[in-house]
Structure formats: C-alpha cells, structure tokens
C-alpha cells in the first residue's frame, strides 16, 4: 500500500513538474513569437510582389536575420532569429516549404560549461485574401529518432508562408568565448524584396563585421546609454535578385555579402588572453584586419617547439648535398613517422580486427592542427640553423588578404629559406614540399619575418608563387583495338598527372595500402602485423587483415571502374587498373596509373561494309556550355592554370583504311587558353594528338568569349567521326 502511494506521489510530482515545465515553455514560445510577429512588425501586411518577379518560383517579401549577443548573470547568451515571409508562386515552391525538419533544443556540457540550446519554429500561412492561419507547431509536429518534422497544413500555390527559426544558446560561466564566424551572401534561392540584418550586443562583446561587393554598410542604430548597454547595428537591402551560381565562380568574391564574428571577453584581462583579431574597444566595429594586427597576434604564437629525438635519429649519419634536400627529406620522414606509420592501426581498429595502439609505444606524436605542425617543423629548422619565415595567406574564394576579417580564413605556409626556398603547407599522406594549395597561388599574403630562427620581428607583404599551365599538366593516352567482328573495343588508358592536377587524383584513386608499405620499407619501420609478437595472434590478424584488404581492393577497383564508366557514359567490362607511380615525393614526382577495359559497339556505326567510329567520344569529360552559360556575366574563377595532353591511338584493323582525318584537326589558341588537335597515320595506327589548356586561374568576364572559343572547339571535337573503309 505504502509503495503504491509513493508511486502516485512521485507520479503526481512528475506531472506537476512537467506541466510547469511545459507552461514555462509555452510562455517562452509566446515571447519568441512576439519578438517576430507583433503589432510593430512593419511587414505583417506585406502581400504583394513586384511585377518583374511574377515568373519566379517564389519571392521573399522579407527576409530578416537577427543576431543577439547578451550576458544574463554569469552566462552568455546567443540568439539567432531568422524570419522569412515568402510568396509561393508555383507548385515547386509549395513542395519546397511543405515540410520542415529540425532538432529540438537540449542541454549538454562543453568544457565544463553548461550549454542550453533552445529552438523554436513559428509558421503562419497567409491566404491571398489576407486570412492568417497560425500553425500549432507543437501539435502538428512529429518526432522521428532525434528529429522533429512538421508537414505544413493549409499550404497552397499563391499563399504566403511566414516563418521564423529561433535558436538560442546559453553558455554558463565563461570569461572568454569566441563564436563561430558567419559568412553569407545577401541573396538567396529566390529574389528578396526586403532584406534586413540586425546585430544586437552589449558590453564585453567585440565585433568584427564587414560587408562586401556592394552590400550596404553596417550602421549603428542604437547607441549604449549609462542605463542600457545595448548596441544595435543594422543594414538593409532591397530588391535583391536571386542568386545564381555558375561554373567556376566564387560567390563571396562577387555577390553582395557579409562576414562577421563576435567574441566575448569579460574584462580587459580576458581581452588580452583572447588571442584573436578584435577591435580596440567594445564600441568600435572592426571592419578589417591589418598587417600590423596580424603581426601582433602571431608574434608569439609560433615559437618553435617539439621533441626532435626521432628527427635527430633519422638525420644521424646522413649527409645531404644541400639544406633544401635535408628539409625535404625531413618533411617526408615526419610525414611517415607521425602519419602514415599509424594508418594501418586505425584501419585495424575500425575493422574491429584488433586493438592496435599499444603496439606503437607510449607517446606517439600527433599533430592536432596546422600550428602544431609549424611549431614542430620550425623547431627542427632552428636546431639545424636553417632560416625560415611564416606566411599568412587566404584562399582566393575569401577575397584579398587586405580585406581579411576572420581568423578562420587564414592559412599558414612555412617558407624555408634554403638555397631555393621550400614552401610547406599541408601535412597529410600526399603532401609534398612546394605544393601549395591551388587557391593560395599567386595571391597576396603577409610574411612574418623570423630572426634567430625564433623571434618574429617584422611583417611584409608578399606574392605567393604561382604555377603555370605547363607545370599543371595531365597526360592521358588511350589506345583502341577493335574486336575482330567490330562488336566491341578494347581500351588501354594511361595517365600521368603533374603539378596541381595530381592532388585530387591521388586522393580519389589511391588507398592507404598503395603507399604505406612503400613508406615502411623506406623508413625501415615495421608494418603492423610484424609488431604483433604472439604467433597465434599474428596468424589470426594476418588472415583477417588479408580478407579486409581483399575487400578494400575490390571496392577500390569497383569505384575506379564506375568513375571510368561514368566518364564515357557507357557500360564497361573486363576492368583492371594498375598504379604505376604514387607521386608522393616532390612536386615534380608524377602520379601515374593505367587501366584496361572493354566496351561494346556503342561507338561504332555500321555503314555498309564500312564502319564509322565516334572517335571524338573518346575525348571524355569536356565542358558542354549551355546557351545560358555562353552568355555568362560573372568573372571566371578557376582553381589553377592547367593543361591536358591527350593521345588517342586507333589500331586500324587489317583490311581497312581510314578516312576523315581532316575532321580531327583543330587549332584555337588565345590569351585565355587553347585547344589543338592533329591526326596522322603511323603504319597501321592512327595517332591523334590533342592539347587543351587554360592559361590562367582567373579570367575577367570580358575574356569569356575567348574561353568559349576553345571550350567549344573541344566540345565540337567530341563529335568527330572517322570512317574505317574496307579496302
């Protein structure tokens, strides 16, 4: 009996708490709603769109984005309210806004601080006659696993949907906190009649904010007073056209956009500790990070630091002709010792074959970020009395370094001042010295000058080196042999990638086992199975690992086969491939592989006793420009200058001659690039040589017609045919 009463009491208590909780939540929801949809909302009756947008799918009557940063008690609070009022003009738009999915708020702990996330969604449907239907989100939504979903009722073509997302995060007890940076274009999927941005802060929140590419400037609309420390900043835009993202385009460089980041530092003490680009005082909005500020921030950040025991052992008894060679060899050594050496272990662990990490000693060195690596490598340089400087750059899609605003847009490059300078940027399994990220090439950057190989004492502007289209070359040879009855073609292809072209290819083709064993042999380290001393265990792991490798290799082959089939858009059979060279040691070291497969008669047409070969179709992956693309109005932003050399060899079957060689000759070259092709007979082989090249990584729109000229020439080549004529 007692037990039952107790149960009831607990049940009652729980119910009261949950009712109270839900009442509180409902009140909060009402409060949030009133923040957006209230009597003062200037957009509450806006219904009409301008005539020129009648043929759009939908139009934002208004889009407002509001960020609020404040500090209740000891906590700090972040709020984002995004409100969109959209007129849905067609079925596609209705479908787009027919369902919403979101994750509800939760409470969790991050670095000992309690973090409370709250999320609210509010939705109204407004009928063309002005009738407003407010959707009861609590009632209408359903929960699937951790996600909430709602199907928006009453929604039809011609309606307006007016909704907001409210996101709130309260972090307890914090003296220093940097929020994630925000980078956005003003434009969206649909045109926007009115865009409004608001940023509200108070004391101790430091703001970096700027707008770009013709976007309006941020204005302070509320000044703090003695009583109320609130500051409000805003900008608005009107009649913003729909975003369009063409090929070869960097939106943040061309489209009106804004970037910002907010940092909270409770007092002057924490301001200094922030190690971030922040304005001098809380009343100023920082719009730009200067060279001097970069110097001041990084002056102390890159003190050389690292345990060099392994490197010293590696260098012992080795002689290098130059420091350049030494630097490169040490880089490769580190790449193995602190990276590729462990790859097998992670694979073994992931596949649940064994727990491998105890086989590698107690304190393996792992680099957690770019700065860790730079500090380690500079420790080696310092120890070996080799001069260096540290370059601070930014990728091209962020804009020029002089417009830098966000630390997250920075990349570090180590420039080692050996006989010929050595640039080191990446640290991964394929990274090699002097291979800069393509998007940093030829950009302006700052270099932090280091004296005594230790102290950063100065900063200067530099231009990062660039590569040429000739260096970034890929060569592709395709040799065709017909089946005796012309029912199919056997194709051998070989590839050689150089310069920047190899980076993506290596990542897409190679698997770890294609290079890890090469590294183990080179640096005399033990592959994982050799580290297992117990014979029985070793045998077991060996079998399981062999099975895993077989599966991985099958998957790799299938993936590459599919990729090739996709290039030709044909079914391919009897596929095999072979890696010839990994290209992991030096910028000049090429990545090479070959593949062999057969296709059916898709490219062969019968013409009486003769055959027509769609030879142009063997030049795969060409750009087909639509009419819209041909009339492009944006500038052209590509990754890097590049050239492609193709060779197509057709083994002419006995008893046949070839006509139509003249269809294979082409020659377009201008200052943006070119496409050249020629064909000649070499005994019973038809050899077609093709060159295609993009001379620059950027072209102004005025030069687009020149690019179109050679792109069209290449595209036209894909239509070329030759006749195999029965002799």
């Amino acid at each position, binding site marked *: 009996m007692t037990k039952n009463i107790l149960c009831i009491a607990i049940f009652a208590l729980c119910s009261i708490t949950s009712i109270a909780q839900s009442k509180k939540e409902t009140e909060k929801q009402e409060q949030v709603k009133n923040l957006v949809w209230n009597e003062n909302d200037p957009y509450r009756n806006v219904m009409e769109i301008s005539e020129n947008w009648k043929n759009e799918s939908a139009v934002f009557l208004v889009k407002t984005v509001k960020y609020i940063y404040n500090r209740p008690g000891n906590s700090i609070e972040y709020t984002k309210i995004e409100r969109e009022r959209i007129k849905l003009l067609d079925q596609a738009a209705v479908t787009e806004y027919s369902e919403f999915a979101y994750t509800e708020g939760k409470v969790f702990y991050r670095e000992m601080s309690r973090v409370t996330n709250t999320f609210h969604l509010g939705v109204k449907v407004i009928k063309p006659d002005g009738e407003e239907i407010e959707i009861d989100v609590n009632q209408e939504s359903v929960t*699937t696993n951790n996600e909430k979903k709602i*199907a928006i009722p009453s*929604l039809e073509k011609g309606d307006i949907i007016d909704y907001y997302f409210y996101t709130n995060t309260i972090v307890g007890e914090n003296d220093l906190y940097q929020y994630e940076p925000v980078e956005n274009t003003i434009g969206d999927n649909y045109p926007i009649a009115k865009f409004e941005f608001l940023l509200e802060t108070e004391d101790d929140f430091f703001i970096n904010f700027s707008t770009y590419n013709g976007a309006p400037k941020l204005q302070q609309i509320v000044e703090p007073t003695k009583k109320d420390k609130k500051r409000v900043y805003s900008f608005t835009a009107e009649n913003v056209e729909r975003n369009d993202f063409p090929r070869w385009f960097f939106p943040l460089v061309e489209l009106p956009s804004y970037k910002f980041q907010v940092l909270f530092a409770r007092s002057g003490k924490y301001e200094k500790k922030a190690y971030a680009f922040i304005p001098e005082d809380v009343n100023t909005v920082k719009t730009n990070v200067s060279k001097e500020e970069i110097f001041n921030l990084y002056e102390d950040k890159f003190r050389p630091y690292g345990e060099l025991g392994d490197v010293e052992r590696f260098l012992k008894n080795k002689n290098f002709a130059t420091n350049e060679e030494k630097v490169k060899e040490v880089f490769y050594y580190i790449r193995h010792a602190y990276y590729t050496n462990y790859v097998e272990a992670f694979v073994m662990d992931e*596949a649940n074959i064994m727990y491998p990490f105890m086989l590698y000693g107690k*304190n393996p060195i792992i680099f957690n970020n770019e700065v860790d690596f730079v500090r380690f490598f500079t420790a080696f340089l310092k120890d070996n009395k080799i001069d260096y400087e540290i370059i601070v750059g930014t990728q091209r899609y962020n804009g020029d370094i002089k417009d830098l605003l966000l630390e997250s847009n920075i990349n570090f490059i180590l420039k080692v001042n050996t006989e010929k300078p050595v640039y080191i940027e990446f640290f991964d399994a394929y990274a090699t010295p002097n291979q800069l990220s393509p998007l940093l090439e030829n950009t302006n950057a700052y270099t932090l000058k280091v004296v005594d190989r230790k102290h950063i004492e100065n900063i200067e502007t530099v231009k990062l080196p660039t590569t040429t289209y000739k260096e970034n070359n890929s060569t592709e040879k395709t040799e065709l042999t017909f089946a005796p009855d012309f029912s199919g073609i056997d194709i051998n292809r070989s590839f050689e990638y150089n310069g920047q072209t190899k980076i993506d290819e290596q990542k897409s083709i190679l698997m770890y086992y294609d290079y890890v064993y090469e590294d183990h042999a080179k640096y005399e380290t033990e592959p994982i199975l050799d580290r297992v001393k117990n014979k029985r265990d070793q045998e077991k792991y060996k079998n*399981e690992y062999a099975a895993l490798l077989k*599966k991985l290799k099958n998957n790799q082959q299938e993936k590459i086969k599919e990729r090739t089939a996709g290039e030709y858009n044909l079914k391919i059979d009897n596929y095999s491939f072979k890696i010839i060279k990994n290209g992991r040691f030096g910028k000049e070291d090429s990545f090479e592989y070959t593949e062999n497969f057969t296709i059916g008669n898709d490219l062969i047409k019968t013409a009486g006793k003769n055959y027509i070969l769609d030879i142009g179709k063997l030049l795969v992956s060409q750009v087909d420009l639509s009419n*819209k693309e041909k009339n492009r109005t944006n500038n052209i932003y590509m990754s890097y200058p590049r050239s492609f050399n193709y060779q197509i060899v057709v083994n002419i079957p006995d008893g046949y001659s070839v006509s139509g060689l003249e269809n294979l000759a082409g020659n377009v070259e201008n200052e943006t690039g070119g496409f050249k092709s020629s064909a000649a007979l070499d005994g019973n082989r038809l050899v077609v040589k093709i060159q295609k090249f993009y001379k620059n990584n950027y072209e102004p729109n005025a030069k687009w017609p020149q690019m179109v000229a050679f792109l069209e020439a290449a595209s036209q080549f894909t239509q070329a045919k030759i006749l195999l004529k029965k002799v």
Partner: protein
Amino acid sequence: MRKILCLLLFATALCVAQKNSDPTPEEISEAKILKLQYPNDDLVLMKSKDFVTFGFNDKDQQVSVQRQISEEMMNVSSRTDIQKHIFYDGQSEIVNFGLKYRNNKSAFFKIKDEAFTIEEFFYNDARVKYASVDFPVQGYKYFFEATKNIFDIKYFTSVYFTDSYPILNREITLVVPKWLNLEIKEMNFDGYEISKTTNFDDKQNADIITYTVSGLDAVYKEEQSPGPSYLYPHLLILAKSYTHDGKSFTLFNETKDLYSWYKSLIDDMNDDPSVLKAKVEELTANAQNEEEKIRNIYYWIQDNIRYIAFEDGLAGFKPDECQNVYKKRYGDCKGMANLTKQMLIEAGFDARLTWLGTKRIAYDYSTPSLSVDNHMICTVFYNGKKIFLDGTEKFNPFGEYAERIQGKQVMIENGDSFILETVPVVAPETNRETHVFNAKINNNALEGNVSLTYSGESRATFLYVFNNLRTEMKNEALEYYLKRADRNMMVENIKTSNLENRDDQLSINFSLKQDNAVSSFDDEIYINLDHYQEYGKWIFNERNTDYEFPHKEFLSSEINLELPEGYKVSELPQGIDVNNKNYKIFIDFELKDNMLHYRKEFVMKQAVVKKSNFKEWNETIQSLQSIYNQQIILVKED
C-alpha cells in the same frame, strides 16, 4: 605539441578481441564452394528457421503470435560487414535480439533501436532493431536469434521463405492450436521443392506444421519488378476464427468480415462536410453539366491536396476526416478518397469509399486478409456507371485509370454489404505518344520541324514533371528535354498546347537542327538518322524477374527525310515486325519519290516484358540495335 597518451585507451583493449571462433578449414572450403554458387552474395544462411506459436492475451482479448527466428549465417566473401536487422511496428515488439559465435559463446554487438523512415510516409510507426556485425574472414559464422511478438493476429498476414541472403536450409514451423482456425495458403510454390509435414501434438493440442525447402536464392534486387507476392514462395496466413472459454469468435473468416472491420473504422469517423460546402459550391457553380462538377472536384483534389502520409497504428487503415484533410490540404490516399467522397456527396452525387490492392499485390478479395489491399480510392456512381477517382494521381483525367490500378479488383462500400468490381483495363492506344520529324540535310546537320503529341499516362507523366518545375526554369527545362540534353540539338520556336490541361491531347511543335548527324567521306554521305533510338539499350541479360513498365507505352515515330538532289540511298536497312501478345516492335524504311520515310512503332501491350519472353525480346532488341547502328548511306546518282 600535444602528446596523446594511448595508455588511457588500453583498458578498452581487453573487451575487443574476444573472437576465438575462427572458421575451421572445412568451413573455409565450404564458403569457397558457396561463393562459386552465389557469386553476387556475401552471406549465405546455412539454416534459417521460423518457429511460430499462437497464444491468447486475456487482457486485450486478442490472439497473439510469437515468431522465433534463428539463423546460421556464413560469410562466403573475403570480409563482410552487415547491419543485421529486424523490423517491427506499433503492433509488435522484438525481444531476444542477439548473436553468437560458432562456438555458441555470445557475441557482443551494440544493438540499436530506431524509428525506420520510409520515403513514402511522412511519419510511420515502423521501427528497426539492428546491430553492425562484421565477418572478418571467409567462412566466418554467427548464429542469430530474435523473437518477434505480434500482439494481434490480424497483422500477421504472411511468412516468406526467402530472405535478402541465399538460404541453404529453410524451415518454417507453425504450431496451430485446435482452438484457432487458421488457413495457410501456399503461394508461389511452383518451381520449388517445398515439403510439408503435419503432426498432431497431444500435449499442446495443436497441429505442428513444418515446411522445409533447400537452396533458395536471395531476393532479387531489380528495378521495375513485380511485387514480392508474385515472385517468392510464401505462406499466406488467414486467421479465420478462434474459440475461447467455449465461445467462438470470428476473425477474418470471409471477405465480409474484412469489410466489417474496415466499416467499423469508418463508422467511427466524425466527418463534418459542412466545412466543404463553400468550396463545393465554388467548384460546381459554373459547371455546364453533372460530369463537369465531378471533374472540377476531382481535379481540385489532385491539384491542391498534397500526398503526405501518416502510417501510425490504426491510421494505416482509417481515413482522416474530410474536414481535417480539407483544412490541412494534405492527406494520404484514404484521406483524399474520403474527401473526394464527401465533396461529391455534398455536390449531390453517390460517392463511396473503395479499397483495393494496387498492381503490386498479387491477391484479390477472395482472400480475406489485411495483405490484400494497400490503397483507397473513391467510386462515384454516375449515369449508371461506377467511375473510380484516385486523388493521389496527378494530372489524371476523369474516367482514365492509372496502370497501377487497372484490372484490379476493388471493394466498394455499400452499407453493411459491399460491392466487388474491377477497374477497367485500358488499351495501350490511350497512352499514345507520337513523334514526327520532317528533316532535310543542311551541311552536317538534319534540320526541320518536329511535332510531338502525348495522351493518357504519357501526358500525365509529362504534365506532372513539368508543373513541378520552378517557373523560371520551365522554359529552359523544356528546351533541355526536347534537346535530350545533347549539345548537337538546337531547338527553336517551341509551341505547346496548354501545359496544364490534363484532358486534351498534349502537343509540342518546334524546329530542330541536329548537328553532326551527317558526315561526308569520299563523296558519300553518311546519315545518323535516328537520334532517339528508343528501347535500343533494353537488353535483359542477367535479369531474374519480369520487367514492368510504368504504363502501357505506345510510341509511334516518323522521320521523313528529304534526299538532297543528285543523291540516292545506296542500301536500306531491313525493318522489323514483331507483334505478339505482350509487345509490338515495328520498324520500316520506305523510299517514295525523293523522300525516305522511317517509321517506328513500339507498343508495350501489357506494360510488361515477361521473363519467359526475354530471349525473344532480346533478339528483337538486337535487331533493333543493328538498325540503330547502321548509317544511311547516300551516294551520287550515276
């Protein structure tokens, strides 16, 4: 530099490597042989048993079902990683989900339990229990066990013999107590050696019925296949009645019992058609005749009610009330059928709810079971005829029926009784699509006017896709479609009929320039006449199931080429004329004056290519490919 102390992680090492269960050399050889037999499968179920018992739940007064599953799984590939899973829903539960090594020691895998989302449903009560299981080497085995409890026997409708893996030995045992009247229908047993034994067990006072079969292929993962109820052997379980405490209770003894249950759900609804009044008046006010009133209501539902389905418990069987669907502007098939019914009643028609199984389901209402139907439409009694209205269809004209419901038996509500009818089957001509290209040679191009027409389901498909495109992209998309996304095709002067009209024939006219279709070599002209090459790639080589088309396709195409002066055709390809029960493929070349007429007709009469026809079909397609592959050669006239 931060150092990671791996020591901290060592503690977990001890829990992982408990796998003293490697395959024996015999098992490895067995796996290798099985891999030869099943080259496309990674796992084989050496044994798979279902042991089904029935009980009575006094609390709910329901007959319950317990299905115990046990499997012996062997990896026949090098290494295999799977998610061993089992589905359940609001009417069932999974207990005892677990795996063991070959030495019978428990294998610890983290068992997850999640809502299972099905694309078709916005929300449903389906759940999945699963574990990620790795088979590290060839020949590796696990024993899997799970028990699924189904709370109410009416939801236990079938047991399939097949699985997603091949099965060497399959056994299904049902212990049917004498108090339960159960009919077991043996479906699709032809072609399988399934043996059955029945023994009476005194102790349990039950028949123990055991089916065994060996050597089952994995279920086929092929697109456009018939539904599983046509393909795989299975037991259809018909729970007819039971006796409890001396009293007899009917379950689904005959179709009327199934109807009665459906009817009880409908009687439970609280429709409020007054909400529809104004809309119905608006839709019917200007109608010229009664048929137009039906049409206007039916089309309004198609265009304005979005298909959003909630399959949650009884909501899977009971329609949402008309006022809710109307206000929400969305619903599932039942909600739309009921809204259609209520709006038509409001407009003065006799309209009824109608249950059916779509083409995917092999059964009809001679089988009283919940597995018979999966769809609901509305039947309107008009002019002495019964006309079926399916609100889930888009751009479906009044009186035309989608392939998926044609020929299917329907159960129409009729007070306490019901009416069985069959949805009419339409002739393939209804879906006729025609292409005419009147072409001339202009340098390396074919140039001329094209006219296209679409009817029936070819029109509905076109309209649906087109009207769901973003407005600003519609023109571009239409051009792209007419060009078949080919850089050689230039399309201009596009003129269309009203692309929102679902009743009249749809037509599109445009001028086409097809570059690179003509090549000249050594005074001869080679013409690649047919860019479209319909059905040219449709060879069924490794297919195990019939191929079902979305509808009975009927395509008639004509290319009329004006020959340039001074040239003649050196040789014309042979045509094709295959006309059988299932399909017609006709190709013809005719020279008349200076015109080459190239005609094609493809008619998929039953919307299917039967597996038994594959050989003949493939031969026809090979002839077709050979025609498509041939260039028309023009030589100079002597």
